[in-house]
């Protein structure tokens, strides 16, 4: 679904890159989200003080809240995973929220973006597993007894494929659905008041979906760190 007017697409058309951005709106808006995040991070970390300034204060509350929440799930040994988990949360959250601004397209409403995020998460769970268990990580895949290997192994592999798909489809479906409902309401019911409740719900959906993505990836990390059952 192409929006009627997207600021950054028009900008890129003006400098002669229109044919690229028309096919890849999500890539362009992913760059926008990246720019926003880098800018915010630079603002927050520019001059950190013991008595924080407002921007630093907001970030400290956010980051320490998330970290406490995550360490509660993973235990103390999982604290080094926090940078990846928090980047996922912040990226998905800003990516979802940006869709509420007129002229912006949420990059998470495209399956390519969400599949990339989910792939990073699930591949990283295996990296963690190999890091923690070494070659013994294969025991996660073969079940408790040897004669059940032909049944358990495909089941586990299907389960891991389902993780990628469920992470990516859930986020994509929610954001795409939100965009679609908004588009239909704008077309049917006029531009001002009818879509307003949906946009208010959109804030909630953005937060919940970012949180669910964050939480599930943390849970998968934890599962890779545990011993084989």
């Amino acid at each position, binding site marked *: 679904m192409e929006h009627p007017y997207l600021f950054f697409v028009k900008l890129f058309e003006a400098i002669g890159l229109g044919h690229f951005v028309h096919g890849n709106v999500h890539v362009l808006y992913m760059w926008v989200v990246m720019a926003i995040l880098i800018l915010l991070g630079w603002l927050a970390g520019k001059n950190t003080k013991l008595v924080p300034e407002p921007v630093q204060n907001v970030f400290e509350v956010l980051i320490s809240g998330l970290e406490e929440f995550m360490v509660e799930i993973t235990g103390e040994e999982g604290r080094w995973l926090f940078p990846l988990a928090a980047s996922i949360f912040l990226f998905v959250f800003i990516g979802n929220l940006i869709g509420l601004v007129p002229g912006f397209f949420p990059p998470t409403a495209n399956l390519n973006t969400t599949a990339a995020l989910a792939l990073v998460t699930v591949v990283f769970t295996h990296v963690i597993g190999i890091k923690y268990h070494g070659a013994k990580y294969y025991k996660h895949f073969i079940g408790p007894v040897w004669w059940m290997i032909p049944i358990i192994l495909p089941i586990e592999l299907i389960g891991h494929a389902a993780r990628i798909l*469920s992470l990516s489809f*859930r986020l994509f479906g929610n954001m795409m659905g939100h965009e679609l409902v908004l588009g239909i309401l704008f077309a049917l019911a006029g531009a001002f008041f009818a879509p307003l409740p949906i946009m208010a719900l959109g804030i909630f959906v953005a937060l919940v979906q970012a949180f669910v993505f964050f939480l599930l990836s943390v849970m998968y990390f934890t599962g890779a760190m545990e011993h084989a059952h």
Partner: protein
Amino acid sequence: MKKETSKTIRELAYYSSLGLSVALSIFIGLFLGIWLDEKFDTKPVLTMVFLGLGIAAGFRNLMIAAKRSRKL
């Protein structure tokens, strides 16, 4: 955030994601079976086998969730 609230939120997110993973496991198994059948020209056999495996994988998620909820 209070300890009890954060636990509730965690449970909520986990259990709400359970249904989707069950459905997706079944469909992954089914489509894998169909694809392998076309590859090896063994029309209904591998579809059935992998559909069964997919259903088993889906229900394994439920079993793990049940085990977790008993432990918590």
